[in-house]
């Protein structure tokens, strides 16, 4: 419950403060957000599975974000940055879909 409120607080903070993303971070932030969403949905699924572990969640959250950013950075250096970010987004969204499907099966039995 408190983390959910935290999410809303974060969104409100973002809306109120209107942060300008530093230029060097701009290509990586959207990818990092998608990676973080993947970790969050994975966590929600494991809560329903009864195997949620906060340590695993924190580590997977951070590593997801870092790995996604590093992959895109590497792609940028190799000159295939946009293709790489497309690839990362595709893979992460597939995982998000799979996790959401599992959550749906749990809660709705459908």
């Amino acid at each position, binding site marked *: *419950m*408190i*983390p*959910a*409120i*935290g*999410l*809303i*607080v*974060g*969104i*409100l*903070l*973002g*809306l109120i403060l*209107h*942060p*300008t*993303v530093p230029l060097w971070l*701009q290509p990586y*932030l*959207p990818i*990092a*957000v998608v990676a*973080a*969403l993947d970790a*969050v949905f994975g*966590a929600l699924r494991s*809560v*329903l*599975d*009864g*195997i*949620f*572990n*906060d*340590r695993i*969640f*924190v580590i997977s*959250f951070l590593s997801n974000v870092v790995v996604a950013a590093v992959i895109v950075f590497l792609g940028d250096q190799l000159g295939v940055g946009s293709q790489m970010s497309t690839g990362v987004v595709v893979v992460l969204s597939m995982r998000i879909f799979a996790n959401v499907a599992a959550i749906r099966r*749990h*809660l*709705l*039995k459908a």
Partner: protein
Amino acid sequence: MAGQSKHRPAKSGRIARLRLRRSLRPHLSRTQVLLTAIFVLLGFATTAAISGTSANAILSNARQSDLVAVLDDLAGREARLQAEATRLENARQTLLGGNEYQAVTEAKRRANALAQLAGTQKLAGSGIQVTISRNLTATTLLDAIQELRDSGATGIEISDKDLAVRVVANTWFADTETGVSVSGTELHLPIFIRVIGDSSVLAPALRIPGGLVDTVQAGGGKVVITELPDVEINATVPLQMP
């Protein structure tokens, strides 16, 4: 979302919902604080990413060549506006000077420019002549005229062997069986377009991919563009009294 020690998947939806409800129960612990911090960060990053992309998404996704084109376009527009501003400023200074002769000259110059635009005056100057022998539709012709206007054409005349029509602001085009109709005058192929303006700008404008030359030749027609030092536009539009 407290850590659960029982490692077994939910057998039924009821158990899953129970687990969800239990994890939603507010209680303060180190884990909750950590998770809350992470979620605040996530929310903040999400909104930052969203507001960051909406502002200049078009430019940041554009290729380098597109950006160069946009920059060129802006530089060109700025130069044109600067020149316009200087000219108007000069005209203002002259008029403020109160010299009647200069005021008359300025008024004549303006009347002359307007006559060119309205097509009530014959024109002569350097420019290009375009000959189209086959496969010309009204749409293609309209596109070509727009392209010529964008390239700074001061006067445009469309003609065939016998008839000539001056192109002005309210000129219209329609397809006919043997050619095109320009403001009601039926012209038969081959059709000549005489344009006064900077030929080094006008000619490339018609040769751009998807432009007049491209479209006509794709349909098996032929376009000849000749740059001439002396183009005469004799067709005029009768002056209508308001």
